[in-house]
């Protein structure tokens, strides 16, 4: 009877372990499958095509070129490999500049024909029109070749404008750099502070203070990140704006500061544990050789607990890189490649959180956010593996 009961419990535990594993695996698979879907989308909005005059020697434009043309930043075909001719970008809504509603017919039945006429008459035109109209224009109109979104543009792209028309810009760099930038600065702030507190708690504070301080710090780790974000928005952002006399306070620096505060409890707790785990024998050996307390700390305790301390740092970085809400609230969310600490930036997790709601399900934008998710996932995997490897390297006495 007892044996059966034990067997039952055993299989129950095995089952729950297996279930958890499978669920995690499914989530990862889901993430990557949705992400892979992104690269099956076309470079320009689906259902639309770009048409040019048949005499135009240009057959293909990259998404970036398309964007710049329609933003009037590129205004001559020679800049994109064509003749020296002015570019006239054309959107379907511009048709009213050329023809009145009557001329287009009651149900727009003459629209394709008229489009054809416009394009045929304007050698420098590039028209962004629905696919269905393009078919019924005339033989003097040629469609530009559009390709699928490609990884090189994604990973090397420096513009993130997922809702731009005709060609949305999915450039990872501003987001990736924003994430790393904010994370790195956060660590640079949190590290010395966290280590200082960890050393103080582990080596200097007397038992009473430690017993009070340590649980308090551990409690900080449990505060929801919106609360930190709120604090950042109300206190840190205006403070930064005033102190550095900036147009806006929502900057990379504000994000780093908030992240640093959020990463502190992790860093302090893990590093302090490592410091405390330094065997008393090490301290006694050092003191016994005439070293004073400080020399013992930095020559023996810190080197001895260095693996634990590094693990603390890596975990802190992990927290900083993956954190969403607080950063979303205080960094200003401008998806531009950061040049200084005092500009708005946008991080990967903040982008996903902010945009997933408005990205049409199954579209390119939606897929792009999943690719971001995959990248974030890979970053955190690398970080946790690093932490794992480092903390296993504990020296044994």
């Amino acid at each position, binding site marked *: 009877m007892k044996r059966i009961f034990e067997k039952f419990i055993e299989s129950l535990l095995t089952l729950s372990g297996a279930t958890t594993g499978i669920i995690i695996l499914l989530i990862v698979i889901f993430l990557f499958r949705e992400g892979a879907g992104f690269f099956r989308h076309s470079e320009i909005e689906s259902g639309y095509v770009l048409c040019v005059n048949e005499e135009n020697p240009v057959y293909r434009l990259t998404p970036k070129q398309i964007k710049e043309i329609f933003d009037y930043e590129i205004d001559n075909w020679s800049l994109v490999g064509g003749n020296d001719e002015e570019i006239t970008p054309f959107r379907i809504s511009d048709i009213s500049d050329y023809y009145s509603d009557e001329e287009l017919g009651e149900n727009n039945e003459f629209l394709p024909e008229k489009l054809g006429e416009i394009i045929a008459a304007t050698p420098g035109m590039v028209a962004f029109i629905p696919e269905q109209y393009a078919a019924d224009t005339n033989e003097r109109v040629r469609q530009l070749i559009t390709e699928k979104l490609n990884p090189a543009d994604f990973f090397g792209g420096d513009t993130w404008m997922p809702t731009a028309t005709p060609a949305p810009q999915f450039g990872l760099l501003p987001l990736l750099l924003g994430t790393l930038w904010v994370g790195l600065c956060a660590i640079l702030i949190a590290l010395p502070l966290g280590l200082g507190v960890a050393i103080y708690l582990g080596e200097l504070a007397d038992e009473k203070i430690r017993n009070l301080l340590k649980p308090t710090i551990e409690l900080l780790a449990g505060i929801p990140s919106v609360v930190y974000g709120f604090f950042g928005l109300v206190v840190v952002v205006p403070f930064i704006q005033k102190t550095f006399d900036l147009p806006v306070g929502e900057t990379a620096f504000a994000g780093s500061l908030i992240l640093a505060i959020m990463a502190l409890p992790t860093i302090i707790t893990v590093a302090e544990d490592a410091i405390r785990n330094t065997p008393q*024998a090490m301290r006694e050996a050092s003191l016994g*050789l*005439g070293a*004073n307390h400080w020399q013992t700390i930095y020559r023996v305790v810190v080197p001895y607990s260095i693996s634990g301390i590094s693990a603390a740092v890596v975990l802190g970085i992990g927290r900083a890189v993956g954190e969403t809400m607080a950063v979303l609230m205080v960094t200003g969310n401008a998806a531009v490649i950061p040049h200084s600490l005092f500009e708005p930036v946008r991080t990967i997790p903040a982008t996903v959180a902010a945009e997933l709601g408005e990205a049409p399900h199954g579209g390119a934008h939606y897929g792009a956010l999943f690719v971001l998710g995959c990248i974030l996932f890979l970053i955190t995997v690398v970080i946790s593996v690093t932490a794992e490897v480092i903390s296993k390297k504990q020296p044994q006495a």
Partner: protein
Amino acid sequence: MLETKNIDFYYGGFHALKNIGMKMEDHTVTAFIGPSGCGKSTFLRLFNRMNDLIPDTRLTGECLIDGEDIYHKSVDVTSLRKRVGMVFQKPNPFPKSLFENVAYGLRVAGTTDSRFIAQRVEESLKGAALWDEVKDKLKKSAFELSGGQQQRLCIARALAIAPSVILMDEPASALDPISTSKIEDLIHILKKDYTIVIVTHNMQQAARVSDKTGFFMLGELIEYNDTKKIFMSPEKEETQNYITGRFG
């Protein structure tokens, strides 16, 4: 010369050492024996003030080295510890290279002359009978040594700061017989230059290495005399019982 007068020591409310007075001459080896928990380590650690690290302890009485009360306010603990080296029960090398382990005491004392340090390291390793085994791998981690080698490294580390007294708390208890006899041989040699106090649970070891032996029980020094006398014809019955193995 080490001397104590009316030493009483308390861990919180626990009376660990009771009215202990004894003298240890220079260039002698003194062994402390006694059942586990009788206070040998506690007494030994008084001489380099290692017990200061333990919170909530109290000491009364006098503890003198060459006539100077080492618990006097004016005494600098770190310089005291440079004069009184210690070797612990379990080898406890630092997570550093062999060289840096031995050089540690010099470095923390502020010595920067690297020729002098290298010379001291060599002398100390020779003094600890370890030089020939490790001279080609001084840059290697101390953890790569065997337990016996690690213990001799710890002895070398203590020798490097040129103390006058060396305290050894069961230095061979974690070692194999060959390493143990190496350490015992070493103690014989070191005796010429140092005053040595050693705690041991091994009667034969105490008989082999020491000139004088103190027998402790329940925080008291029961008997203290020449080692020969203690082992051949102890005065107290407890001592007799202990060394013949009828007790403890």
